[in-house]
Each structure stands twice: as C-alpha cells, then as structure tokens.
C-alpha cells in the first residue's frame, strides 16, 4: 500500500498541481484584494455586491462537483441533489436563527420569530443544539449524509438504476419541498429562515465577514476538489468507473456494487450539504424553493456543460452557466429560459462530453477529418 503522502502528491501531475495552486491562490487572494485594496471608483475595483455573488458561484461549484462525483464517476444521475444542498443550508440557517437571540422582531430569547408568530411555546426537540456552531457544522454533513445513506441503501440494494433512480430522486426532493412549505414542520414554512444577524459573532452583513465567507468557500471548493480527486484516483474510484460502464459485469466480478454506489452517493450528498451551508450566510436566506425539482435538474446541466467525469468540468460549468444566468436574467429575463432550454438540448446533442471534452473531441475530429467526412457526429454511440 502506498503511503498516504505519496498518494496525496500523486492526486495531480506536476502541471496539474501548479495550475491548481495558481488558481486556488488567485481566487482566494485576488477577489478580496480587488474589493478592498483598490480605491472606490477605480475601474478594476470589484463592487461590494460581487463578493457574495462570486461566493454563491463557488458554492454552486461545490454542488456541481458533488454531482459530478456521483453522476460522472458512479453513473448515478441524482436529480435531487438540491435537497441535500438545501438540507445543509437549513442546518446552517438554524444555527444563524438561534444566533439572533433577542434581536428578533418579537425579542424572544430562544424562539425564532416565526415560532413566536405561530404561537409556539417551546423549541421543538430537533432545534436543540443548533445554538452551538460545532453541532450545526456536524449536522450540515450528517443530515444530508444520513438521508442519502438511507435513501441510497434502499434504492441501490434493490437495484433501482438509471432513469428510475433519477425520477425517484426527483420525487424525493419534491416531497421534501412540499413538507418544508408547511408551517408545522417547524422550519419557517413558506418564508424559510432569514433575517440573520451574526455568524460566530461576526455581522453577516459586514464586508469583512462576506470576504471571509468567500475565502472559506474557495478553500472548501479546493479541499472538495482534492477529496474527489482522492476518491476517483483510488481503487474504489476505478470500481465506480467500471460500474458506471458495465454494472452487471462489475457485480459478477465480485465487487459490491451497492457499497461503492452508496459511498459515492453519500459522500456526494455530504459535499452538497457543505455547499448549502456556505451558501446560506452569503445569500442571507434559505427557503423551501431550494428544494424545487427544477433547481436540482439545473445542477445536472452545469455538470453536463462543463463535462461530466472530469471534476474540473463541473466547476467550470457551474461558473459559466451561473454567470450567464445572472447576466441574462438581468439583461433579458424572458430569454433566459429559452437559453437554458437550448443549453440542455444543445449540450446533450452536440457536446456529449461537455466543454472539458471539447478539446479532445476537436482533436479527435481533426484526426478523423483525414479519414472521414468532416463534422460527422456519431449519433448512436451509447
């Protein structure tokens, strides 16, 4: 068995490490510098609103990474990853709600405003402990992880695969959305959790806190990327790839397909939970619409645009699509859905390997051009 340090060093090749370090440092340093060091009015100065916006993109990138791990490598297309993301977000939101203390509208020392409003007398048991940051952090990982574990165990054990799995994951997030919309679930119903005041004693509205959260998100993305690399370069990663391409064969070779899938799915859900937890303090609200099936399916298109099974592609896709979304919903709101729809169709038809695969596809295309008619796309390659 290779020593761990050796394994870690081999996560990326030399060029890869150089690029990774350069991008991570640049992302973590340049944005805060552009925002704080430059004088107001300087053309390169980053406006204050951009910091949480970029932070939001980074959180989406972590979510896309999580989905790529289970879709691109283990072949599980989960259309319910938004549920894990939102659960992580709700755990963080519950901590932030408990931090409000007496500063709420009703000034109740323990109960959040919406509970006072609903005339509740005491805190429900599942809200206990969320006044402690470490407990909230633990829950951010454990709650989505536990749900994914139970759901995945039931699904993979009985060999629910492919589109069936996609549809029931969608039903899962749909059911959660219906539930969280209800007031008596105790998560603020329709309005969700909002009006946060401070995080670990720092004002969530303050510029310094936002920069801190942004840097934390970038670090989390970097760590998540390395963790995913670690998994996909391991022997388990090989099994995952194999079962993606020929599940029955892997099973007959004696590997436990269920455990491998369950591992990928659960880890992926935990990562999604972390992404959600970082997302909530930056956008300042979490509500049940995060559970909507449409949100989850949008994550799949980020990964598909970037190129699944590449990890880098997922991150790239999340940034590109969300940047386009911010820009288009501002510039021409009615065009955005046309664009998103066209993206879904175009990417699946013409870019099956996404942007990350484009270079390879192009090179292969050039090579093939000498042998075959140029531009012939193989339509029926399964």
């Amino acid at each position, binding site marked *: 068995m290779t020593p761990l340090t050796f394994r870690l060093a081999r996560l990326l090749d030399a060029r890869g490490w150089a690029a990774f370090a350069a991008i991570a440092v640049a992302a973590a340093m340049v944005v805060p510098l552009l925002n704080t060091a430059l004088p107001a009015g300087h053309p390169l100065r980053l406006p204050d609103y951009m910091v949480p916006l970029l932070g939001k993109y980074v959180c989406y990138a972590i979510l896309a990474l999580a989905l790529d791990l289970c879709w691109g490598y283990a072949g599980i297309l989960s259309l319910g990853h938004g549920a894990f993301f939102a659960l992580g977000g709700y755990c963080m939101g519950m901590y932030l709600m408990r931090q409000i203390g007496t500063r709420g509208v009703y000034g109740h020392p323990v109960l959040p405003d919406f509970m006072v409003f609903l005339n509740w007398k005491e805190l429900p048991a599942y809200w206990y402990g969320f006044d402690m940051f470490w407990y909230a952090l633990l829950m951010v990982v454990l709650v989505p992880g536990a749900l994914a574990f139970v759901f995945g165990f*039931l699904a993979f054990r009985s060999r*629910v695969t492919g589109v*069936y799995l*996609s*549809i029931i994951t969608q039903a899962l997030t749909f059911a959660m959305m219906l539930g969280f919309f209800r007031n008596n679930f105790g998560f603020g119903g329709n309005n969700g959790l909002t009006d946060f005041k401070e995080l670990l004693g720092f004002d969530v509205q303050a510029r310094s806190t936002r920069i801190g959260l942004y840097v934390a998100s970038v670090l989390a993305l970097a760590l998540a990327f390395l963790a995913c690399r670690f998994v996909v370069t391991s022997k388990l990663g090989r099994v995952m790839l194999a079962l993606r391409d020929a599940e029955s064969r892997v099973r007959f070779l004696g590997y436990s397909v269920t455990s491998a899938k369950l591992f990928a799915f659960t880890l992926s859900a935990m990562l999604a939970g972390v992404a959600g937890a970082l997302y909530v303090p930056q956008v300042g609200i979490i509500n049940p619409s995060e559970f909507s099936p449409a949100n989850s399916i949008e994550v799949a298109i980020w990964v598909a645009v970037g190129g699944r099974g590449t990890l880098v592609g997922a991150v790239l896709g999340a940034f590109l699509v969300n940047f386009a979304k911010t820009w288009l919903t501002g510039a021409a709101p009615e065009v955005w859905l046309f664009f998103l729809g066209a993206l*879904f*169709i175009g990417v699946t038809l013409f870019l099956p390997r996404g942007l990350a695969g484009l270079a390879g596809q192009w090179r292969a295309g050039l090579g093939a051009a000498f042998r075959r008619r140029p531009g012939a796309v193989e339509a029926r390659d399964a």
Partner: protein
Amino acid sequence: MNPLKRFVLSGLIWLLPATGLAQDLAALLAGLADADPKPAIEALLKSDDAKSKAALTALAEGRLFKRLADGAVVSAEKDGPMYVVTNAASGEIEDMAKEEELEPIGLDDDAKALLAHLGTAPADRKEAPLDFAGAVNALNAESFSEKAKAIERLTQLGDGRAVPVLQALADGRLFTRRGDGALVIGDRAGNDLRLTAATTLERGDVVKPGAIEPVVINNNLRNVVREAVGRLGLVSPDAAARRNAADALIGAATPEAVTLLREAAAKEKDRAARAAMMLAIAASDLNGADKALRLAALDVLSASTDLRVRSLLQARLAAETDPEIKVALDKAFAGVQRKLMVIGVAENLFQGVSLGSVLLLAAIGLAITFGVMGVINMAHGEMIMLGAYTTFVVQELFRAWMPPSWFDYYLLYAIPAGFAAAGLAGIALERSVIRFLYGRPLETLLATWGISLVLQQLVRTLFGAPNKEVANPAWMTGGFELTGGFLVVYNRLYIVVFCFIVLAAIAVILRHTTFGLNMRAVTQNRDMASAMGIRAGRVDMLTFGLGSGVAGMAGVALSQIGNVSPNLGQIYIVDSFMVVVFGGVGNLFGTLIGAMTLGVANKLLEPFAGAVLGKIAVLVAIILFIQKRPRGLFALKGRAVEA
C-alpha cells in the same frame, strides 16, 4: 319691491334651505342623537332628499344608532351576531360592528308624533303597483328591511317567474346595471357575464363584470329568500321544482310554510317531492309540542342524509329534556351520522376515481413514450399544456367566428385539435432531438427537460403569463345528486368516461391495428423488425406522435377542471411518472391500476393527513414500493425486460 327682486328673493329662499340641508345632512343626523332630537327631525322632514327620508325611516324602525367610538349617527342592521353599519349620510356600507359598540337612538313621544307624519311619505312608496316587474324592481331597495318586504311582496304574487330572480338574489347573481340601473341576472360565461333582464327574464348581452354592481344581501335575507322560494315552488307544476322547494324549506319553514307543506304533501304524487316535503314537515315538527308527532318526525328524520338534518338533531339533542325523545334522538342522530360517514367515504372514492382518471389520462401518453419506447420525456407535461392551450384557442375561435348556439360544442372540436397539435409537436420533437438520443436515457431526460423549458417560455411569450380560463360548455356544468348530499359533478364524470374511452382506443390500436403490430414488433426486437421490412424510424416517429397526442387530449380534459397556465404540465409530470413507474412499464393495465390506486389513495388520505402530507405519504410509499418491485406492479417478464 319690484317683481324681479321678488323673484330673485323667493328663489333664494327656496334654494337656501335645500343647499344647506344637503351639506349639513351629517350635522342634522348628529342632531338626532341630542337630548332633544325634535329640531333635527323637523328639519329632516322638510327636506325632500331621499337620504333624509331613509334616515328617518330607520329612526322610526329603531335601526338608527350612535356609534360609541366616534359619536357618529349610523344606521345598522343585524346580520348574524354582528351589525352591518351604514353611513346614514352617504348611504354606503361602512363596516361591521358588535352590539356593544352601538347605542340605539331612542324616541320620546313627541318625536314619535313627529315621525307619524312620515308614515304618509314612505307609504306611497310601499303602494307600488303589484305587478311582477314593479315587485322585482323593489328588490333593489336601500335597506335590508325594505328588501325583505320586497321579497315578501314578490312571493305573495305567486308568480313562478319570481323563483329564478329570488334564486339569483340568494346566490349573489342579481346585479344592477351601471348606467340605467336596471336589475339583471348575471351568469358566468368565461370571464364575462351573460345578462338576463330580471323583470322580463329575457336574455340580454354579455358584459364585463365591471359594468354591473351586485345587489347586496345578508344572511338573514338569504334565509328569507330560501323560505320564499320554497313557498313559491310548492305550487309549481314541475315536480322537480316542488321537490327543490320542499328541500329549501328543511329547517327553515315558517308556520305558514308548514301549513302550505302539509297541503302540498297531501296531494303530492311524485315520490321524491313527497319525501322532501315529509322531511321538511318532520324537521319543523321536531321542535313542536306534540310528543307523538315528534317521535314520528324523528322516524322520518333518521332516514335522511342531509347535513341540515344532522345539525338540527344535534341542536335538539343539546336542548332536549324529555328522556323518551332523547333516546329516540340519540338513535336517529347516530343513524344519520353513520349514513353520512358512508356517503363521505363514497364521495372520497368518487373524487379519488376522478383524480385517478385525470392521472390516467396524463399517464397513458407517457405509458406509450416511456413504457413502450423507453424514452424519458420530461416535456410530456408540456404536451398536456399544449393540448390545454389548443382548447383555449378553439374556444376563442368559436367565440369570434361561430354562431353562439355552436359554442356548447366547441369542446368536441377541441379534442381532435388538441390531439393533432400535441401529436405534431411530438413528431417534430422526435425527429429533431429524440431520435439522436435513443439508448442514452439520461441524456434524453436532460434534453427533453430543456425542451419543456423552451415550450413553457414560448407559450408564456405568446399567450402571456396569467392563467387563461376555459369555459365549461353548458352540458358539462352542474351535476346531479346521487343520494342525500352526494353530488356527482358532470365535468368530473365526463372526464372519467372520456379517459376510459381513450384507454380502450389505445388498447385497440396496440392490439388490433397494423400500426400497433409494427409498434410492438419494433419495441420487442428492432433489428428483426427492420429485417422484416418495417420502417423502424417511421414507427418510432408515429408512436411518439401518438403518445404526445394522447397527452394533448389529456390537456383538453384538464382545461375543463382548472385554469390553463404555462406550467400546467409541471403539476402532473411527477405524478404521471409515478403512475407509470408504479404500474409497471410497458403495460396499459398496470397504468390503469397505478393511476386509480394513486388517485384513490391520495383522496382517502387527504381527510386524515391533509392534502400535502397525504401526497408526501403517497410519494414515500411509492419510493418504498419500488424497493420491493423495482419494475412496478405489473412487470414485463422475459427477454423484453432487459431490452
């Protein structure tokens, strides 16, 4: 004094008090609450103003109050536990008040004597000619008490034409037309209202809701109307009308009405009408003094399944002192309660079957595209939506181009139109996108999701985001009562029937046509079918078109039970997939069972768990069910499974 000056002066003398009164009506009204209201009453008596008259009438009838909050004089009428407060100066309804917030304005003998003059003034209004039109027009009186009188007079005319007018008044469908103030009955026709003149019952034109103003009534008046309709209807030559009339009198009959009922029941031949009359008489006898009569009444009542009877029994049970009657009451109440429960379950079952048939319609198309072809079509919901919008377009075309008498049949044209529109859209979809993605289900899923987004946005751009309302044709509105309180609504019933016709048609196409044979051949073994000379690509295209077309017909049906909106399909897509997955892929019978099970389970759970929790419970149950039988209830066996 020259004549000119005299003329000007006399004019001024006439004008001054009039203008002064008009401006100071509020001040005069305030004077009514003074210790000595006489000057104010005298001043009001002098005025010719209708509002002053109304205020004095209210004063004489004891309907004038001083509001304790601000000391203003208001007229108020009791409506249930609260008073409806009207600003006496402007005649507009202001708000509701509790009894303790108002102080009645009392009258001493002097003031009463003054008001006795008043008797002459409103009297000429009371002696309106006793013709039908005049009596109807009197319904639009200022105060509730005058309206009640108008209703009474209209009833005394004994004219059968009064029934629809009074019914409209009770249902809030009686309006005054802005402009000429004529009384009209308005019936919904899409977003507009079709008017019928209340005095002649002649059909009028269709207007926007803004052109008319409702005639306001309160709950007390509603009871008066109900009673009046009942009394009028008892002498109607139509048995159904007599039955409805007796039905309206259950628990609401006045002593005169009971006398009428007894007379009518004695000579009634129609069984249903007679039963309703007996029930109404029994309901009134229950509160009487004669013990034998009361026990007999209980016998009759215990056979009923009317909610009103139940509350009547319940109220009596709380107040009853006679032990013998109490025992009988207990028994009768329990019997009614049990019957009502059975009906409740039956109602839930019917609603469940109705929901199930909607789901089935939405899922049949999916059973073809997903079940038979294996294509995950996330845009399936949008095919439903296209069908619904086609219905809307057909409706608008009929409104614009066809004679109004044809309008009721537009739906029959909308069905093939919806099938064609969605079917063609499906064929276009299959040829342009899906055929490149066969064998790659996950990609198909994403691409069709994209198509669904584009279609939704397209419809939103073309038709606008707000909901469109599609009118029910006359033959689909209303319903019939199966037994006490169990109402079967026509549009739901027709959808159940329609869905079974569609299912049968699809089964016939699959089993007994060449196209169906080709389709089954291609799905079972594509290469072999091609080798036998079947054009597989063309079969794919037509199959997909058929599935989409059926979805379009589902949209036509859905437009009849709800509004049409761009995200109509999204509401049903998850449920439809659940139906197909639950019922088993590639099996129409499974789809039928799946849809009905889901529909009935949803509706049966609703009363206990609420709509949302019920739905969640069903979703979770399906997720767990799929663990046990990953391929659904009726799974295909053999080689086709792994294809």
